[in-house]
């Protein structure tokens, strides 16, 4: 088997890794602040919302691009 990771796939999985690192690695402690409040929302909450939105949009992109895989006729047939 030849493992071929398309650029799309690398971008999707790389982006997922980045998002989860920003949310769950000890980096979160850097964002663990009340100030600066942005639009009246504490910084920790804004940080979480921004990376949550990033990952959610990335999941949508992943779906639309078949998670970076080539289009597959058999998998579409069983819909």
């Amino acid at each position, binding site marked *: 088997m030849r493992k071929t990771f398309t650029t799309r796939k690398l971008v999707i999985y790389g982006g997922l890794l980045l998002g989860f690192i920003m949310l769950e690695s000890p980096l979160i*402690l850097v964002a663990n602040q009340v100030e600066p409040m942005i*639009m009246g929302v504490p910084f920790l909450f804004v940080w979480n919302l921004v990376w*949550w939105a990033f*990952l959610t949009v990335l*999941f949508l992109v992943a779906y639309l691009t078949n998670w970076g895989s080539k289009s597959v006729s058999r*998998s579409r047939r069983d819909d």
Partner: protein
Amino acid sequence: MTGSILIIAAFMIIPLIVGLVSSRQSQGTSEDFFVQGRAMGSVAVFFTVAATWWSAFAFLGSNATFYTSGPVYLTALAWNLLFGFMYYWIGKRVWYLGKRFNYLTPSDLLGDFYNSEALRVLVAVITLVFTVPYLQIQLTGGAYLIEVASGGVVPFWLAALLFYFIIIVYVWVGGIRAIAWTDVIYGALLFFGMMFAGYYISSHVGGPTELFARLASTSPQHLTMPGPNGNMGYGMWFSLFMIVAIGAFMGPQIWLRMYSVKSGRLFNLMPFLLGLAAFAYFGSVLTGYTGVLLEPSLENADQVLPVMLMNYAPYLLASLIMAAGAAAAMSTANSQIHAVSTVVTMDIYQRYVNRDASQSRIVLVGRLSLVGFSLAAYILALTVPGLLVTIGIAALAGTAQLIVPTIGAITWRRAHPMAAFWGLIGGTACVLWLTYGASVSNPLGLHAGIWGLILNSGLFVVLSLALKRHDQDVVDRFADARADYTAEYHPEQCDGESSTFRRTSQAQ
């Protein structure tokens, strides 16, 4: 008061009607009763997975945690995303193997791949032992809500009893199809309830912006880790992220929803839908924090949402939103009762008691199991007190241990049955010991479930590398299935060689 009783009554009667209507399509076979003939469509799958995944733990426990412990529950945004990703990456492979080899339970897949009766039994025991406490918190949460919504007219014991009576009736008649249909209603109510409750309640302190400003000046420790009690720091942030997502994902109720899906493509979309739904937690942020300002001395934090609603919202609106909370509890409880009855019926009754049981007999045993487990959870709810989140996480830490042999089964041909068995024993023993026996429950701030996963994974990898499997036919059968999966869904990873070539390559 009459209005609220009517809302509660409607909430109880509607699922009954839905269950009875859905039962008209039942086929009378075990596959139909347990996994809807593997033909569940996209709308039903999303709502039944989301509503099953979001429980009383999410609806009541999230508010309570923001109220008592600060922002640690905010990690829920990430654990929903992780859950969604696992549903795509692991769930789709489990679904494929389930369809190919006709699995109904977690033990079916793991017992078949590892070719071990001992492991099959161990997996069934773990799913049962750790699901019942989680079931108990659904009952507790739902009953709290009904008790408060009725102004105490319906006491806790009666609310819990009514709650389970309704579930038993419609699951009895309709199986997983009735659950999926009712979960569409429950799911919609749940998301509406969480969002609207937060928005409405926070308006009593001037809206979200004013709420955060007041909290920043009066109780800033509620806005950062480790929270007002100083015990919810990074270790717990990371532990919750891992344990809640993995533990819930490995619960038998979610396994059944992997097997039930009609199309593989649906798994590609679920991460986005489940991630998007996580925004509803912002409603819990607003409710919990408004409670800090307006009701700072509640004895039972799990009641913060119902108490806030009763004190600050019109009675009918409060009852409607509490019905949504009961929906969260009921939609998880119905799935869990159904799932544990499936495990008892297929993994114990059919395999060890009556191998030649007829389809109608199997379905009957499944239905009787519903009643038995409901009774057990009811007794637990009346006798074992505790915060919903605390009980829930202990239960999830146990089921989370199943992720290790599962990943082994779907990816690694060297995964060894003894490694899976002793890994699970080590992991669950570690969880139980750190939860109930050790003097320090969270070494280095990490939850017992994380330590269990570390020990479990270590044992699994080391023993798999040290031992050699002798059942090559089973290993090859799964290698072929995995290769076919890859060829079908990820063709860029294949170059069209024969399955024999693929098999050889995978061994390396």
